[in-house]
Structure formats: structure tokens, C-alpha cells
């Protein structure tokens, strides 16, 4: 359509250029725009306005009914398209943000779970170790106590034997020195002596 119009315009221009050369026979006085009294100019000035009105009305009609609504539709469509694209991008961003938040929350939850599991395991191990060490301690304490009891028994039996041995030795010494010995007196003396040394 455009090409046809351009060609039509061009074809119409050619005779103009050829004809514009022939100037009017009667010279135009003053401004040709105001030469209403001139035989040809006056007629052409009126004709110019009449044609102008027709041409301008055609232009307004073509613009209002044909060209501008279509151009407006193109621009409108582009605006809508951009708005829709922006909206879609906004939605996608919101979605991504939500996914990110969910991911972060789940990571946090997993981390907390792991932390509590580790703490539980540590606690259980601690308790187990405590129990074991307590049992070992108890057994060792029991063994120590038993050993101490045995030592005490051995010592007291040894202490008992010591009195006999001391009495016997003292009796033998006394017998050697004086030829006789009073068993009862020696026993009493040994008992006194032991008591004095704190070993009764």
C-alpha cells in the first residue's frame, strides 16, 4: 500500500515540475498569496482552499479510521506485552525467593537435628562411660577394701604372734640370766611394754 502511494505521488510530481515552469501571462503584482484580483491566481487561490479542505478531510478520515487505531493497537500490544513479561518475571522472582527461603529453612532444620543427634550421642556415651567407670571404681574399691581387711588381719595376727614371740624371747633371756622365769610376770611386762609403744 505504501509503495503504491509513493509511486502515485512520484508519478503525480513529474508533470508538476514540467508545468510549474510556464508562468502566467499576466504579471502578478505584489504577493501572489494575496493576488485575488489576478485572473488566474485569484481563481487558483480559491481552488486551492477548496481542494485543501477536501484533502485535509481525507487526511483526518484516514488517520482517524484507518491508520491511527492500528498504530495505537501496535503500541498498546507492546505495552501489554512488556507489562505481562514484567509480571511474569516478578512472579518467577517471588517463586525463587520462596524456594530459597524453604531451602534455607530445611537446611536450618537439618542442622538443628544433626546438632541434637550429636549432643544426644555425646550424652549417651558420657553416661555409658560414667557408668562403666563407676562400676570399675566400685570393684576396685571393693578389692582395695578386701585387701586392706586382709592386711589388717595379717597384721593383727602378726601382732598376736609378736606378743608370744616377745614373751618367749624374754622368758628365754630371763631364764639364761637368772636361771628361772616367772611366766606370768613376763607376760604382764611384755603386755605393758607393748601397750607403752602402742602396739597392743
Amino acid at each position, binding site marked *: 500500500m505504501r509503495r503504491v502511494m509513493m509511486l502515485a505521488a512520484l508519478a503525480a510530481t513529474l508533470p508538476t515540475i514540467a508545468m*510549474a515552469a510556464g508562468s502566467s501571462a499576466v504579471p502578478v503584482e505584489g*504577493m501572489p498569496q494575496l493576488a485575488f484580483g489576478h485572473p488566474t491566481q485569484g481563481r487558483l487561490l480559491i481552488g486551492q*482552499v477548496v*481542494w*485543501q479542505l477536501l484533502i*485535509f478531510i481525507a487526511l*483526518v478520515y484516514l488517520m482517524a479510521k*484507518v491508520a*491511527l487505531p492500528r498504530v495505537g493497537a501496535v503500541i498498546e500490544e507492546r505495552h501489554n506485552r512488556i507489562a505481562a513479561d514484567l509480571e511474569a518475571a516478578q512472579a518467577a522472582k517471588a517463586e525463587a525467593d520462596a524456594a530459597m527461603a524453604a531451602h534455607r529453612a530445611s537446611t536450618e532444620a537439618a542442622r538443628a537435628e544433626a546438632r541434637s543427634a550429636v549432643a544426644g550421642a555425646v550424652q549417651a556415651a558420657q553416661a555409658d562411660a560414667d557408668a562403666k567407670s563407676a562400676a570399675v571404681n566400685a570393684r576396685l574399691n571393693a578389692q582395695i577394701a578386701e585387701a586392706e581387711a586382709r592386711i589388717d588381719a595379717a597384721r593383727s595376727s602378726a601382732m598376736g604372734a609378736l606378743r608370744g614371740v616377745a614373751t618367749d624371747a624374754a622368758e628365754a633371756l630371763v631364764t639364761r640370766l637368772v636361771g628361772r622365769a616367772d611366766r606370768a610376770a613376763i607376760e604382764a611386762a611384755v603386755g605393758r611394754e607393748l601397750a607403752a609403744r602402742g602396739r597392743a
Partner: protein
Amino acid sequence: MAAEGKTIDALSQFELSPVLGIFGDAVSFSQSNLFMVIAVALTVGLMTATANRAALIPGRLQALGEAAYEFIAGMVRDQVGDEGKKYFPFVFSIFMFVLFGNLLGMLPYAFTFTSHIVVTLTLAIVVFLVVTGIALARHGMHFFSYFFPEGAPVWLAPIIIPVEIISYFSRVVSLSVRLFANMVAGHVMLKVFATFVVLLGGLGAVGPFVAAMPLAVNIALVGFEFLVAFLQAYVFAILTSIYLHDAVHLH
């Protein structure tokens, strides 16, 4: 050409001559009207090409059409508001018609139809009638309160009302004369300096050097004229928008 008989003829460029042979002569179809048809064809071609591409990412031509659309749509939205939407095609047509009229006039051998007072006056009257029609249709008799601002002292009415009425009607004059005078002045200046180039160029050996000065002026003028072409189309469109605002909102 312009320098016939060593005189400066800056006005013959505005003379009308019929085109399309005897048909054009019979219906008084001048080269001015032909360039109006070309302007309309270019506008319609640009906008239909823009709509036909309809690419999501516009190419250069489509971007141009869309830029024109959005420029005027934004202007109408800013000036008139949302009610102005249905008048957008009218303002857009005004803008493109004036813009292409001005720009086509920059081509060699082309005719600048916006340099004719009858053309700019017709456009201004169309704007005036459309705006007044819209105002009357929207507000009925209440429209006439436009000529007497609310809150003004009543005893000032004999002064205010005639002044307001005169300023309302002078819109037609200011719209049409501004565009017409700008285009005529620019094209006369171009022609005068171009004639200087030809006249001075014939002055023997120094001619070409002296002629370089008006040539440089003309080069600057061409750039200036392109600015004026856009600016005047913009002014025409924005004034139309402002008048539409007054018609829709009454002050």
C-alpha cells in the same frame, strides 16, 4: 530564474500554477494542492507502514511513525487530559499536514503550501470551528460563560466580555499569520540570498569568493528553516491542543 534581468524576484516562488494539464486547470488544482496530496500520501504511508510492520521491536521507519504518534498523543494527553483522546486524530492530522507542508517546501522545485495565507487561514478556521463546535456540544449555552471569568466583578463585564471575545476570535489570526509569516519570511530570505549568490558570482574573478558569503548564509538558513518547519508544526499542534483544553474544560 529568480535573477531575471538582474532583479531580485523573491515572490514568484509563491505563484500558483495548475497541474495535471487541462484537468487541473479546469478544477483549479494547483501545484500547492498536489503537494498537499503528497503530504497526505506520505503521512498515510508512514502510519500504515508503521502499523503493517507491527514489530515488537520497531525498525527505523516504524520507530519514526510510533514516535510521531506518541509525541502527539502525549501532547494531547498532557494538554487536554483523557477526554482529549477522541480529538487526537484531528490534532495529529493538523501536525502532520503542517509538518510535511513545511518540510516538503525545503526540497528544490517543491512548493510550500504553508506559505499561503489562505491555506493557513483555512486550517486555523477549521481548528476554530472544530474547537467551538466541541465546546458548544459539551457545554451548550454554558459555553458562553467562557467569555466572563467566574469571580470577576460584574461592573467590569462591559470591558472583560468584549476583550475575551476579541481574544477568542484572534486565535484564528494568530494561528494563521504565525505559520504563514514564518514560512514566507524563510523562503523569501532563502531566495534573496540565493539570488545574491548568482548576482555576485558573476562579478568577474572575485565573484566566486564574494558569492561564498551569501552561500554560507543560505546554508545556515536551510538548517534554520528545518528548525522552523518542526517548530511551527509543533506550535500549531500545541495551540490546537490548548484550545481543545479550553473547549473541554472551559478555563
